[in-house]
């Protein structure tokens, strides 16, 4: 029983990172109908920002999180203005390929500037050690992604539903031209949405540095899982992405625990395909 509970706990932690990336992808997908292949790379950049902040400024990743989120927010704005806004005028296939090529550029630029070796946090951090609750052991570092995911999900929900800008973004995603007619600047909505998605990925990267290695290609795995979580959660639904991210993390860890670690991914895919077969638009899809 304890093994199962520990598995569930680890699964939720694992799923939190996926949920964070998935929320970013869902935001971009829901608002702009672009499948952003570069969210994993924003995660990777967030990890590197946190690593260098830790190495040269001695900052704990939690402290570096606003820094990373802010830096990636700015990067998101730049990338949107330069590339994505032009891509949106073209066919959908080109949009996907542009984000894919962008992800390649980011990965290999990171490899050029940061080197391809696996890195780990150098300076000591605040959270270390574990809390032993008897039936499960909680590693303090691993709580960070979970709390972050809840925080981000809550903040995004509040932002999208209670603030003017958030509602403007929702309106733009429903009907871009109608939103323009009532005075919303669709380009600004898209910029904010894209930049927020990349900021979320950056914060997730910071949370990940506690217990994961950093290397340029780290985003690729999380990227694909994020996609699957979003597809399962439903088109454009941030809540759906969050929940299915957690579910996927659970499926992944429990499959690894009870079946075979080599085919964890297949367990996740099975869950995904079964869900999508019954509800092709995803669980919360519109």
């Amino acid at each position, binding site marked *: 029983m304890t093994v199962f509970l520990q598995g569930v706990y680890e699964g939720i932690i694992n799923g939190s990172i996926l949920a964070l990336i998935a929320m970013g992808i869902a935001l971009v997908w829901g608002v702009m*109908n672009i499948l952003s292949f570069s969210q994993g790379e924003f995660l990777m950049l967030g990890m590197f920002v946190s690593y260098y902040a830790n190495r040269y400024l001695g900052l704990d990743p939690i402290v570096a999180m606003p820094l990373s989120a802010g830096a990636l927010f700015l990067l998101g704005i730049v990338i949107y203005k330069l590339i994505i806004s032009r891509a949106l005028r*073209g*066919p959908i296939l080109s949009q*996907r*390929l542009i984000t894919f090529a962008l992800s390649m550029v980011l990965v*290999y630029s990171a490899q050029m500037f940061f080197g391809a070796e696996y890195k780990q946090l150098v300076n000591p951090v605040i959270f270390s050690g574990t809390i032993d609750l008897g039936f499960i052991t909680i590693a303090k570092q691993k709580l960070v992604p979970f709390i972050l995911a809840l925080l981000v999900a809550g903040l995004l929900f509040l932002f999208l539903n209670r603030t003017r800008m958030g509602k403007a973004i929702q309106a733009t995603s429903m009907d871009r031209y109608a939103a323009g007619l009532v005075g919303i600047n669709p380009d600004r909505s898209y910029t904010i949405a894209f930049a927020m998605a990349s900021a979320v990925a950056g914060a997730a990267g910071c949370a990940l540095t506690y217990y994961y290695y950093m290397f340029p290609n780290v985003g*690729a795995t999380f990227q694909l899982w994020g996609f699957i979580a979003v597809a399962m959660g439903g088109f454009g639904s941030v809540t759906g992405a969050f929940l299915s991210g957690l579910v996927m993390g659970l499926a992944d860890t429990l499959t690894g625990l009870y079946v075979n670690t*080599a085919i964890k991914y297949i367990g996740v895919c099975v869950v*995904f395909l079964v869900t999508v*077969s019954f509800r092709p638009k995803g669980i919360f899809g519109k």
Partner: protein
Amino acid sequence: MKKLSYKKLLLCAGILVILIVLPLIFNTAFSHHIMTMMCIWALLGMGWNFIGGYAGQISNGHAIYYAFGAYTNAMLLQWFNLSPWIAMWIGCLLSAGIAFLIGKGLLRFRGHVFAIATMAVAECVRLIFINTKAIGGATGVYIFNAELDPALYMQFTDTKTYVYLYMAFVVAVLLFVRWLNTTKFCYYLRAINGNETAAESAGINAANYKLWAYMLSAAIVSLAGSLYMQFMRYTDPSMILTSNISMMIVLVTVMGGVGTVYGPLIGAIVLTYISEYTRVYLSHYNGLDMVIYGVLVILIVLFIPDGLISIPGRIRKHREHKAAVKEAPAK
């Protein structure tokens, strides 16, 4: 049958002469390597074009069939000493069969969900391949054997032979695609791509045709995989089953011109050229080659969204527009 005009015959003869002479002018092994890879990517693009271009279902997981083609060749050679000339067709059938199963399950999804589902399945297949010791697992398969008869087993020492042989394959498949383009099959696919509901209301069984297109694309991609195996003589899951390869197959077709007959060929030529030359001349800067490649891809896809094959058409339209503006004086 249409009367062949002298102009067309001359054009064909000219192209043939160029194809024959090209590997002789650029006579280094590296140039031959590039030309062979261009042929393989052209085949990949032409195959993917059927499901992605004509039928409009963007599949991001075609690396599966690429790998199945390559591995079928290798395993049938290792286990049964079967010549690749036969094994490649068995690989095509196997891939078509697997495409039937996968397509049946996945083709009901549209748009982004289909793309994600195909990516997920491709990753699953990659993990299965890595974990199956019988076909080499993560260490891959390797079929180089100097004692085998080169012609019978398609392992030539002279790279020129590879170039000519693969060019022949490309020409054959290109003619096949050209012919198929004029048949009812592609006509219906274009209708489905335009508006699936309308096509179905006109009596076209969309699901069946999309499945056929998917199986055909899998077979051609598998053929390319067999040729790749025979050229490289070694492969492993991390070389041919990554999502990068799947996306590059899409890239080749889209850059050239998705849904056209000659588009994938042009895309393959340009893309292979860019990627191979940047790799050779720039890769000692630790990844700069891929950065340049990515930047070029972004630029090309941003500014020429219809693919490189649309450039002559655009230039012509631009000239016509300029001429019209000149003729009508500003009032």
